[in-house]
């Protein structure tokens, strides 16, 4: 047991926990999914699960971009990286994500020019500094990150940087939620909606979840008090037999999203007919590719890409964990073959992945409820 006494507002937490307890109906089971990996990280870090009444179960959703990236896309990216004329750039989160022949970091150790960037703009700057080399930006992320990639591509065009190309692996959150809701082995009572994705798309796109599936969804901030407050709002709706979209994170998330970001997304990207998600399989209309008019900056058009499909390691049960059917420690490989140092599944790589978070923080609990 580890204590987190430095917490700023224990009274807020105590009040929220008290209200959660009073809202829970005895004998009823509440399965609530947090969509975003940032929430997953926060929930494990602060031991929130242990504070909740046993009736309330938190299911960890698909909102960790590196966790849902299929091995085939990593293999395709690393094929490009192995070209001596290529400088392969990606966010730090990507570096240890395993493809079937190793991770970007391992490619780097074998001599590929693999560089960590903080922003796609850094990759563009590298392209300007190395006009004789092809610079690939391996783009990942949901709607939070995709507008930045789109603006960078437009900047490359504006500046006439022809040796820069985007390998788009951007995905969109709504089809993944839909796929989970349609999954026959899933039963969910409500959703904690993603915080920073919603700064871009707003709250309205989530309405189908409430309307068609009868599930409350509350867009939430990342602090423990935010997450518990969002649970209170979900449980209040369930108690009142309601389902609607609410915004707990109104201090950052505008209801209609960010118009400039949505406009640049629509300008540069179009929806792919389908895209593979690690653990979830192919999901229709769930990812973004560069539009034809920007093909000169699309790695999939200017570079040879095999488009390989690679099955996940058989023993790993990432799909079941991603859908919340299994808890991380119930996977056969958890903590044995698969650890944060030697990840086999991607959920073990990022601190936003349920397995890495569970591995790192299992047993942590707050001492805020005493008294």
């Amino acid at each position: 047991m580890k204590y987190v006494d430095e917490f700023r507002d224990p009274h807020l937490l105590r009040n929220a926990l008290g209200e959660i307890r009073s809202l829970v109906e005895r004998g009823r089971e509440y399965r609530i999914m947090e969509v975003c990996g940032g929430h997953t990280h926060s929930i494990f870090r602060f031991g929130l699960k242990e504070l909740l009444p046993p009736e309330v179960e938190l299911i960890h959703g698909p909102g960790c971009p590196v966790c849902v990236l299929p091995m085939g896309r990593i293999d395709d990216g690393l094929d490009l990286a192995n070209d001596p004329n290529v400088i392969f750039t990606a966010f730090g989160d990507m570096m240890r994500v395993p493809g079937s022949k190793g991770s970007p970091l391992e490619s780097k150790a074998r001599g590929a020019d693999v560089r960590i960037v903080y922003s796609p703009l850094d990759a563009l700057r590298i392209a300007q500094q190395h006009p004789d080399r092809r610079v690939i930006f391996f783009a990942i992320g949901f709607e939070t990150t995709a507008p930045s990639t789109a603006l960078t591509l437009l900047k490359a065009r504006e500046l006439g940087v022809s040796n820069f190309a985007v390998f788009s692996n951007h995905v969109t959150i709504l089809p993944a939620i839909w796929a989970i809701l349609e999954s026959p082995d899933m039963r969910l009572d409500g959703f904690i909606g993603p915080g920073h994705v919603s700064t871009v798309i707003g709250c309205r796109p989530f309405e189908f979840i409430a309307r068609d599936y009868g599930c409350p969804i509350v867009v939430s901030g990342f602090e423990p008090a935010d997450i518990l407050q969002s649970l209170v709002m979900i449980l209040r709706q369930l108690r009142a037999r309601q389902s609607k979209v609410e915004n707990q994170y109104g201090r950052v998330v505008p209801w209609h999203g960010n118009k400039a970001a949505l406009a640049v997304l629509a300008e540069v990207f179009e929806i792919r007919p389908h895209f593979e998600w690690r653990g979830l399989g192919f999901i229709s209309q769930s990812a973004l590719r560069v539009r034809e008019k920007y093909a000169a900056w699309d790695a999939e058009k200017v570079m040879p890409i095999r488009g390989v499909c690679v099955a996940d390691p058989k023993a790993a049960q990432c799909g079941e964990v991603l859908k919340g059917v299994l808890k991380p420690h119930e996977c056969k490989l958890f903590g044995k073959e698969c650890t944060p140092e030697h990840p086999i599944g991607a959920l073990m790589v990022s601190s936003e992945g349920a397995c890495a978070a569970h591995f790192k923080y299992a047993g942590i609990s707050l001492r805020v409820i005493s008294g």
Partner: protein
Amino acid sequence: MCLAIPAQVSHLAGDESGMATVDIMGVRRKVSMQLLEDDPPGIGDWVLVHVGFAMSKISEEQAADQLEILRQLGEADAAEEELRGGGALG
């Protein structure tokens, strides 16, 4: 990478590039303000920055809250390392 980093605007480029210099956890860096063109921030304003782009304007108090949660999640050091490695202005 879901979590955005709070930063304070210290200098606006004043041209069409849409770039601004911000202080992020003591590191100075150029970030793009293009996603906030409908409501552009001024010098001294706080913004949430995600992968080199300001995503939303926030209050100073919210910035302090966000910094605190990054620290508590153990993400602050990693974020700072990324900022320094990624071509900060020094």
